[in-house]
């Protein structure tokens, strides 16, 4: 083994670097941004700043968790932004009956969208990108039919969900953290998680091994939609207004970015939850850094693009030897 190590040639070294980057690059990126900000950004090391950043990134993380599961099955869900909008509309419509009934209604609508996505993918056999594209367009359409324009929401329960905290930690952050742990546990320790990965890696083999392929796929899309709905409700609660026109716009892309930057390959069979969370945090920090230094938003987009390309490049090193 020692001999083998010394014989390693230059291309292999690069492969190792890429491998390292894919696994730990996202954490290194977060750490680097933190250090840079501590040095160059005034008032960065304040609890208030961290709170703001965390509250902003929480909805992205929650959506990205579901997205990571879907991508783990070699799929993709473009309808998450639309589901957030739908969640906002339905919340506004049913808030009159109280927060809990409204949340229940949101869950039902979201589950219906997830079920439709899952059925199209698993039963009809439509490609995920096409199936969820339909719901991405249609879902926001339904949201706007239910609630054509922005509506202010005055509900103390909802308001406290959006801005309340426990010992200084906002509910938003707590909910995101609990959900991340729950999803990570599901992937690692449950039958469902293992089956999901097997299906993503080789669907024909999973099918012949007797795995409930259809059921797992449908559940994955339902879970993804439910998580998006949670994000939608939390965002609405923070705004104290329901905004189906713009809420969740481009969220699908942010979520996919977080997942990919976090080291989950688009080819399925692997899900990296910790990486996904870090990926969302990385993008958030990058955006915040540029904004705080008064760079125009176009710069933020370019910076995001660079991060995505770097992540894809690192992922490319995998599987080649």
């Amino acid at each position, binding site marked *: 083994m020692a001999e083998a190590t010394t014989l390693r040639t230059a291309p292999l070294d690069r492969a190792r670097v890429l491998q390292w980057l894919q696994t730990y690059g996202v954490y290194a990126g977060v750490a680097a941004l933190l250090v840079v900000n501590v040095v160059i950004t005034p008032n960065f090391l304040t609890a208030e700043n961290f709170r703001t950043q965390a509250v902003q990134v929480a909805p992205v993380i929650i959506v990205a968790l579901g997205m990571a599961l879907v991508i783990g099955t070699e799929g993709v869900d473009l309808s998450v932004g639309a589901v957030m909008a739908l969640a906002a509309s339905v919340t506004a419509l049913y808030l009159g009956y109280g927060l809990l009934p409204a949340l229940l209604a949101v869950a039902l609508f979201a589950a219906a969208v997830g079920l439709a996505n899952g059925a199209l993918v698993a039963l009809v056999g439509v490609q995920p990108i096409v199936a969820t594209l339909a719901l991405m367009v249609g879902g926001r359409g339904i949201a706007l039919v239910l609630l054509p324009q922005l509506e202010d929401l005055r509900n103390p329960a909802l308001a406290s969900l959006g801005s309340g905290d426990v010992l200084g930690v906002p509910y938003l952050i707590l909910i995101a953290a609990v959900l991340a742990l729950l999803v990570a546990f599901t992937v690692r320790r449950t039958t469902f998680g293992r089956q999901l990965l097997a299906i993503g890696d*080789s669907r*024909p083999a999973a099918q012949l091994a007797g795995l409930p392929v259809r059921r797992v796929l449908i559940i994955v899309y339902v879970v993804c939609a439910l998580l998006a709905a949670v994000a939608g409700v939390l965002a609405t609660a923070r705004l104290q207004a329901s905004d189906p026109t713009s809420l969740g716009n481009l969220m699908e892309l942010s979520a996919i970015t977080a997942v990919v930057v976090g080291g989950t390959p688009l080819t399925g069979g692997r899900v990296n939850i910790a990486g996904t969370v870090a990926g969302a945090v990385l993008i958030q920090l990058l955006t915040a850094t540029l904004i705080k230094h008064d760079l125009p938003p176009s710069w933020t987009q370019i910076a995001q693009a660079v991060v995505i390309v770097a992540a894809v490049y690192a992922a490319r090193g995998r599987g080649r030897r």
Partner: protein
Amino acid sequence: MAPPAEVLAVRGLSKTFPGVRALDDVDLTLHAGEVHALIGENGAGKSTLIKLLTGVYRPDAGEITFQGAEVSFATPLEAQKAGISTIYQEVNLIPLLSVARNLFLGREPRNRFGVLDIARMNSEAEEVLRGYGVRVDVRRPLRTLGVGAQQMVALARAVATDARIVIMDEPTSSLEPREVETLFSVIRGLRDAGIAVVYVSHRLDELYAVCSTVTVLRDGRRVHHGSLAELGRLDLVSTMLGRDLGEVRAEGLTKFSGDHQATDSEPVLEAHELTVPHRLHGVSVSIRPGEVVGLGGLLGSGRTETAKAISGALPVRSGRVTVAGVPLRGGSAAAAIRAGVSLLPEDRKSEGIVPGLSVRENIALAVLPRLSRFGLVSEARVDSVVDTFVTRLRIKASSPHQKVGELSGGNQQKVLLARWLAMNPKVLLLDEPTRGIDVGAKAEVQKLVDELAADGLGVLLISSDLEELIEGSDRVVVLKDGAVVGELTGDDVTEDKLMRTIAGDTAATAPAAEEVAGDG
């Protein structure tokens, strides 16, 4: 006659991968018009040697002299341009392009304006392919051809590029006997044209039919080289395995012990009149506990389809399957597995293993729900199942956490067997269980099938290896064009009888043939 010119001389070639000495100081000499067998178990270094010759890998040490000059190919394209063509086990052409486009890819004929001359390309392609016994519309996309025909296109392409050396890596693994004959005549044509051929195969018959010289690799080293005719079959096998000759002879060429104690009890599996449009026409098979039933027939006779239909992987139009007397609700692999019927699929790589998951996850894949409580996996129970089968089947992996995709074919097959044995099945359907795996693993798999039958399992065995089919089976059901054309039992289970049945000599098999005729 002057001795044929040396085309290729390889001296002291070595290649090391992290942790593995894949090739160690190997020599190889090829002369014009030589058909050279390159053999060895999986992991012996055949693929590495080929990849070094064709510029896929760079050697760590040693030199390659090609047509008198030392060469160092940086890419497969360079090697191909220099005159070393390779046909891989899996056809690597472009499925959506036309047959003709594939044949001429990268060297398309152009007219005087430098524009692709499609008419000329098509007519030339047709003519070239006719020489290979392939008569198809060359404008059709390649993927519409059968695998055998695709292989022929790959071969024609390799030869047409003015090759001096043609390397064939298990070229017959997806060919029918008739196509194998065509391949052999093509190889003889190459030989007569002064082209050197390197022939890699696990099928001994083929090696002796077509090769003149041989190089045997074992554990990355060359352990034998010379004339093939002077090396007997048993010597060849023992050299390859590195085992004592007496030991191999005593055990015969396959590991099967012969007849099993098939009881007269009720069949554990009965498939009745299975019909799948265009594939199966009323196929009936029954298997008793402890019995190995072979499915004989040529490629495309419906053997794989029969196994898949029984296991629920292929929807049937009519017919029924009962397991231990209980009718199987058809249409899903999951239902068949619950009832105790497990299928080891023919296409191990794409339908069997889950390549990115570990050995452990692959073994536990099907049995996982039984090792779980409320959907939570019990890691301890998984570990104990995995340990049991890794030991029992002698699965060689660096650890249970190694990815299955990195294992050799034989070990991948053992992982799949472990996956099913963990389920305690009543019936195992084995579709080409030893295809493409090395001789040692093959013997182990055969021995295991024997043991399983002895333990009372019903086994359905599909194999293109006649020897394996005959020695392994207690009874052989012969299929032809999707229907049962005969059944061999007792002393009739011989290669000769099997061939006669396939060929349509109904004398030995009248009862079964009548049965089929009755179904119309």
